[in-house]
């Protein structure tokens, strides 16, 4: 019986005008485009400079800042008020003010100050912009010092020279960090939404009622909905792997089979969750909204955008109930660090628990009569 029910599900899936295309095109587009758009590295910060010094040193500093690649020199203002106005008009994000006695102070007292003011309406951009600018000015002071020391034939290095080594993601590429997480988003969308909408669709068409008067038991019925979407999840994931390789040359340091193993449990958990929703929703509209609400919560608490460790305590606690969190950890670890199963037993147990919980709930809440 189950065999023919599965055959039926696949036939219906393949005959749908929309779903097979969706499963193939969605991961393609999402992985090809989203990582480029969702990017926290900040470029093109608009800079306004107030140069009161007009000296060789001040213009050297300005040139250095402008050539760093992070900033676009939008204007040179005559005074701070004028620069502030340009910030208010949103023409510039950061103001660099060089005081009149900049060069004199630098030469005479070996100490000079500049002022950095940043527009922090977009906190991320303002914060990073002023940090980048401070870094460049630091470099500049280093250069100046070396200029003075070199002719004297002495080499003096600062007391500490910090050379960070970035493990696992040496270029600090945000894309590499985001792709595994976006893959999981795809998987969650496909494996959560499709089964839920499928069952609610059967309710709307009345075929659910027709099935309910037959002796088919609920385990078989739920399995016939679960297994096809499980397989579809694997296909979508494989497409994700391919796209990651095609566009970003990104292959996991670890093994694909580790990912498949975890994905099999994750998909089961998420499809189960979709089934639970479908048991409580009577129309496709209701199901869509319920799914959307819960998936959004899962995503924001998963550490996809912001690290879980920087969330408030209550949110960190709640994030334990997001299956996405564990799966994103797994994928990032396998892709970037090359972790194996033994390092991720904790995540495996968590995902299995979700799978058992949601599917148990789905079987329990599926009622053949009202």
């Amino acid at each position: 019986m189950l065999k023919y029910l599965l055959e039926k599900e696949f036939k219906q899936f393949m005959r749908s005008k929309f779903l097979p295309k969706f499963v193939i095109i969605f991961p393609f587009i999402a992985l090809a485009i989203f990582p480029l758009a969702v990017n926290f590295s900040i470029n093109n910060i608009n800079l306004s400079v107030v140069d009161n010094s007009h000296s060789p040193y001040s213009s050297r500093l300005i040139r250095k800042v402008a050539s760093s690649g992070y900033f676009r020199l939008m204007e040179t203002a005559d005074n701070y008020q004028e620069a502030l106005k340009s910030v208010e008009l949103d023409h510039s994000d950061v103001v660099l003010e060089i005081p009149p006695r900049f060069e004199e102070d630098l030469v005479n007292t070996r100490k000079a100050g500049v002022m950095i003011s940043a527009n922090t309406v977009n906190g991320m951009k303002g914060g990073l912009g002023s940090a980048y600018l401070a870094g460049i000015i630091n470099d500049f002071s280093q250069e100046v010092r070396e200029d003075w020391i070199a002719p004297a034939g002495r080499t003096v290095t600062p007391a500490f020279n910090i050379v960070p080594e970035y493990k696992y993601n040496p270029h600090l590429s945000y894309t590499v960090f985001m792709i595994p997480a976006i893959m999981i988003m795809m998987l969650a969308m496909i494996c959560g939404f499709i089964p839920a909408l499928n069952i609610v669709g059967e309710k709307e068409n009345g075929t659910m009622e027709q099935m309910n008067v037959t002796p088919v038991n609920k385990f078989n019925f739920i399995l016939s909905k679960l297994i096809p979407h499980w397989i579809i999840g694997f296909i979508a994931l494989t497409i994700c792997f391919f796209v990651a390789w095609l566009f970003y040359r990104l292959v996991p340091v670890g093994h694909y089979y580790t990912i498949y193993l975890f994905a099999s449990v994750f998909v089961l958990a998420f499809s189960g969750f979709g089934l639970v929703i479908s048991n409580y929703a009577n129309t496709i509209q209701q199901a869509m909204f319920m799914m959307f609400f819960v998936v959004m919560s899962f995503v924001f608490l998963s550490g996809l955008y912001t690290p879980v460790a920087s969330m408030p305590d209550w949110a960190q606690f709640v994030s334990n109930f997001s299956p996405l969190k564990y799966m994103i950890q797994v994928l990032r670890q396998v892709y970037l660090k090359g972790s194996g199963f033994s390092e991720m037993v904790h995540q495996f147990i968590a995902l299995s628990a979700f799978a058992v919980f949601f599917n148990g709930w789905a079987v329990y809440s599926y009622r053949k009569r009202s």
Partner: protein
Amino acid sequence: MKVVTVQNISRNFGKVEALKDISFDANEGEIFGIIGPDGAGKTTLFRILTTLLLADSGKATVDGFDVIKDYKQIRNRIGYMPGRFSLYQDLTVEENLKVFATVFNTTIEKNYDLIKDIYQQIEPFKTRRAGALSGGMKQKLALCCALIHKPSVLFLDEPTTGVDPISRKDLWDMLIRLKKQKITILVSTPYMDEASLCDRIALIQDGRFLKIDTPAAMTREFDKILWSVQSDTMSKLLADLRRHKKVKTCFAFGETHHITLEDSTLTPGEMKNYLTGLGHTGIEISPIAASVEDCFMDLSGNQTEK
């Protein structure tokens, strides 16, 4: 033998009383018609008997099994055809039939005899998707799907609504053949003319049964004088007849108006004079025998008066 027994079934949806204290029995190999307008509670009754809905109170058995305790046995023994077409529109005729054969643990071949007569009519389209069939074809396919496991009781909820007259006749011919195979058939319909094809009928209105009897007995027991009246201006005629003091009820029945009389002393001639006086032309008046519809109108009128 009583195949379906219903005792004092009631069901409310919030404040709406969909069924009020319904009781009846249906015998083996009988076509039991439930006749009533939309919203009378026909579908609710069917959903309770097919174990899809729980009654608030009362007892019911189908083929000897209790609808609450033994619902699993019942699901093996009944065929249900809901009023709304609810097969898989994206599967073909043949695939739909196979799905339902499979979930009942049987095959199309095993019970092909039972559905042969009706399936042959749709067999030329067996590779067409169910969604692309005409209304009559859809109903024939739905009937095949409901019969494929050789049920002992068949529940048909408004099988002829939205179906053309020829397919309607085909469907009823099929039901009469199935009856001979000892299959008990419960059929609901809003069409009074189909009532005479049933062995027994129950008239239902606002969740209550008005009367249960054979169609013949029901029309025989109609104890009022019934005339059909016609003229060239039918809508004016309806109003004029209703104004007449000796006319008890008057309803539009297609091309004629049916009236019942308060007073048996009135003659057709007197009525004709009355109408001519009001300017009617082409008047035709003839005493007629009651149809099921007349009985329904009469009984439902009594109901509302009480």
